[in-house]
């Protein structure tokens, strides 16, 4: 009923709800802050991990995931709160765009909203808060770019930077004790790409068994397949034909064809014709004179035998990705027709050695000395699949950051240095701005400062004291100071070698402020009636 006493007609559908004004805002703040608080404890080198348990009958204990990766945690969560969904969305985008900083972006957006809530309670209009945030964001971004440094891509300094960045990224993960080892490994893998950003060339193979330390970088290419029985297990100076063709039987592709015969003889004849067609195909393949034949699809016994008889090593059922990688690494063309043997030089791939190797208990095929030397394989070992999965995610993060750095080249100091610098810039700006926006700019600075604070808290240190000391140190003009998370003091990031990629920080800052603004602007939430689902 409205104030006058009229009964308001129902406008929306039955189960739909509508929240307005304060209620709507409260709902978004609560949701977004809850999500941010959830991933907050994973931030920084001393952050903790989460166990993710799938719901659904029968699989409670089987497929659990242990992770520290913000995007993975948020992606697997089922939330209903719309504002929380926005935070999850930006974390996903961060993952796709730069691969790291997925926790930071969600936490920063959450902290911004926490500060925003306080301002709203002080009766500052959301639009004024947004206006202030926009000023603050630009100032912060400018400072961030100003403090970043750039090194020549071929210099030793750049190489050192890369190692440091990888170490910083990995230090918050499970493999923090072996971070030097893995940092080196990741940098080597990325440098092999020679500036290309195609992560496909770096293959990660996970094999349970051994310890994390037993992981290694293999400069060859490893295919998780087996060589067909009866073929040579070691081929030197291999000529490889990579194919994607049916080697079981050729379907007739002309529409509406049916085989109709009237006697047993005819059946035999057609069978012979079929066989002959296959032999014909094999003959054509042989004309290319390969020594190794890799096919994506399965190969029936008959053609397999024909090929093996001719001394060709056959690898069947290579998956799609694997095949593309083989082709890329060995410089082969993926063939589906075999009518141009004169092009054999162009289409065949080369590598010095193909051999079957044993890693743990599994047999695999290793291609060494490939024509295009960009591909490489990281073999991960570890005590359980959960550990391996987490290591895989960590390495993936590190590789993404490294590739981004190679592209962007600019780096900033880690250990909360960049956030503190940005916060300082915002506070300076706040002193110059007239009007209520200044409160919002100060709030932005506080939110930025929360990131190092949380890192301290997670490490069990006295954050209030550390952050204040940090501020003073920066004020003194010590540009390279940052959090030393080993001793719980303020240290020199240059000496500790803690660096981060500018692009990651930029993206986190922009995405978080955009998302916070988006949520802040909402004054009305309409939830439609949920679609009825029939239970199967």
């Amino acid at each position, binding site marked *: 009923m409205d104030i006058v006493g009229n009964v*308001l007609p129902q406008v929306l559908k039955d189960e739909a709800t509508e929240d307005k004004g304060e209620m709507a805002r409260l709902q978004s703040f609560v949701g977004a802050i809850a999500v941010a608080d959830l991933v907050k404890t994973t931030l920084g080198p001393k952050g903790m991990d989460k166990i993710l348990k799938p719901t659904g009958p029968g699989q409670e204990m089987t497929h659990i995931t242990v992770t520290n990766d913000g995007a993975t945690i948020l992606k697997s969560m089922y939330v209903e709160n719309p504002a929380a969904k*926005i935070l999850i969305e930006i974390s996903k985008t961060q993952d796709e*765009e730069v691969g790291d900083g997925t926790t930071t972006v969600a936490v920063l957006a959450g902290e911004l909203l926490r500060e925003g809530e306080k301002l709203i309670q002080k009766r500052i209009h959301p639009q004024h808060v947004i206006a202030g945030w926009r000023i603050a964001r630009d100032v912060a971004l400018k400072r961030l770019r100003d403090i970043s440094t750039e090194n020549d891509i071929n210099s030793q300094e750049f190489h050192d930077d890369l190692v440091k960045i990888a170490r910083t990224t990995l230090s918050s993960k499970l493999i923090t004790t072996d971070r030097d080892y893995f940092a080196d490994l990741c940098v080597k893998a990325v440098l092999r790409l020679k500036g290309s950003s195609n992560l496909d060339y770096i293959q990660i193979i996970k094999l349970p068994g051994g310890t994390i330390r037993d992981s290694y970088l293999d400069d060859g290419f490893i295919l998780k397949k087996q060589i067909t029985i009866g073929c040579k297990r070691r081929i030197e100076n291999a000529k490889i034909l990579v194919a994607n063709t049916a080697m079981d039987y*050729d379907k007739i*592709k002309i*529409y509406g064809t049916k*085989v109709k015969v009237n006697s047993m003889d005819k059946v035999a004849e057609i069978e012979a014709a079929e066989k002959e067609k296959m032999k014909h195909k094999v003959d054509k393949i042989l004309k290319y004179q390969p020594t190794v034949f890799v096919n994506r699809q399965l190969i029936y016994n008959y053609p397999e035998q024909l090929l093996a008889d001719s001394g060709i090593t056959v690898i069947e059922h290579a998956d799609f990705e694997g095949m593309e990688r083989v082709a890329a690494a060995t410089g082969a063309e993926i063939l589906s027709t075999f009518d141009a043997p004169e092009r054999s030089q162009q289409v065949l791939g080369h590598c010095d050695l193909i051999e079957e190797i044993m890693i743990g208990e599994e047999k695999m095929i290793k291609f060494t000395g490939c024509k295009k030397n960009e591909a490489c394989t990281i073999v991960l070992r570890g005590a359980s699949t959960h550990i391996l999965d987490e290591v895989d995610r960590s390495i993936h993060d590190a590789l993404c950051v490294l590739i981004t750095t190679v592209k962007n080249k600019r780096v900033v100091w880690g250990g909360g240095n960049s956030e503190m610098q940005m916060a300082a810039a915002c506070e300076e700006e706040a002193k110059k701005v007239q009007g209520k926006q200044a409160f919002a700019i100060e709030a932005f600075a506080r939110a930025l400062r929360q990131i190092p604070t949380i890192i301290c808290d997670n490490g069990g240190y006295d954050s209030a004291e550390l952050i204040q000391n940090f501020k003073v140190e920066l004020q003194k003009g010590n540009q390279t100071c940052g959090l030393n998370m080993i001793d719980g003091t303020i240290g020199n990031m240059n000496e500790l070698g803690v660096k981060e990629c500018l692009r990651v920080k930029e993206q986190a800052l922009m995405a978080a402020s955009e998302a916070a603004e988006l949520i802040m602007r909402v004054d009305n939430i309409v939830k*439609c009636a949920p679609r009825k689902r029939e239970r199967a």
Partner: protein
Amino acid sequence: MSLAFDDYGRPYIILRDQGQKKRMKGLEAYKSNILAAKAVANTLSSSLGPKGMDKMLVSPDGDVSVTNDGATIVEKMEIQHPTAKLLVELSQSQDAEIGDGTTGVVVLAGKLLEQALTLLDKGIHPLKISDGFDRACDVAIKHLETISEEIDIQANEHEALIQAACTALGSKVVSKRKRELGKIAVTAVLDVADLARRDVNLDLIKIQTKTGGSVEDTRLISGILIDKDMSHPQMPKEVNDAKICLLTCPFEPPKPKTKHNINISSAEDYKKLYQQEQQYFIDMVNLVKASGANIALCQWGFDDEANHLLLQNELPAVRWVSGTDVELIAMATGARIIPRFQEITPEKLGKAGCVKEVQFGTSNERMLVIENCQCTKAVTILIRGGSQMIVDEAKRSIHDAICVIRNLIKDNRIVYGGGSAELACAIQVLQYADEVSSVEQYAIRSFADALEGIPCCLADNCGLNPITSVAQAKSRQLKENNPRIGIDCMELGTTDMKEQRIYETLSSKKQQIQLATQVVKMILKIDDVIAPDDY
């Protein structure tokens, strides 16, 4: 349900299943309808203007969208009430016709209905009210035309167009970058506009979204961006001086529409068929190759064999290109869409300076860009942003801006925003009301009040005192005879909208007032609602 009884006290059954229906008549029906429509208008009213707020909408499947666009809000609210649905349609028809002002039209309709409610309470017949509204509407429209100004869209590097786009973008989440985005929109529209005919085909502007980066990274590509990549990973990633063959037939043996059977009864047939099949593929590729094409875009798929043959013949190809993209490419490159292989001729090929693959982010997402098309009459706006919701909202905002610019090219008359035009009309309508001697006078006066509701609402959303600021603006308009005085939403220190350069198209304003009046008239004519009880 009211019942009629016969002489014996038995109820008449008039409607089928009368017991299961509910019915509202007379004043009760009017009021219920008006309240429902008002509820929708109230939801939208806080989104009006540069400082309007957004709405968060959760779809039945749990997807979230955040938007400021009136048409989108009412569409996604899934409104059930029949009268309220009329407002949804109202907003959508404004969107279809003009593209902008979708919030304003609903808010105006809400204000009119509010006024109608008080008039009904006074005991004025609904038809009299609607007649009065109609007459007032005519006066307002006429006055709008007299206060409108023609602007020179060419002057000062299309500054006027950019300003109009900025006005449209000002209320959206992307408002921080309104100047940049406005420029992008203006350039895009001018690239494809036919200035001689004063027409713009908006199909030629493709808006592609991609999450990642920030709204600042949004850019205009003078060409077409399609979300596809080359069919074979080893095909060249860049084709210069492309001659494009646009196919709408698959690289497959023909499939006649009539059902038929080919029966194979001997090994000889079998072999023959096999050869013929091979020949088909070779012929197809040769036909394309012979025409001189160096890239083939196909609406359908093709199998591994055809794919490899294409690679072998150094003919890069793209498969599963969507139908709209095919048409766009045809228009841009001057290519003819070829439905059969036999009909490929060199004249039918489209030409473009460059076709290349571009990559985004770390997750290996690739897209194709067709640049420097023969007839550069197609552009793509690539929108970036931190999350899907932002990108979607930016897309809607840019669409609005593009529509505004198109309307200006069609008709370069503008009125000033900030509620000034509504206020000027209100003053005019009020004057006219005094000349009318019948009952309609009250309705006409109420129409003027409703028009004043728009600046009121604007001021309210901007945190100004609505009554004071509207009163001030009104008295200044009368005193200075200046129809450009409005509400200073952005707190720039002047209420003259000409100085603030808040441009709105005349066509949009006219349409808003007309459409809102029409819908209100329609709602006022309903005096009986019969609906199933459980509805």
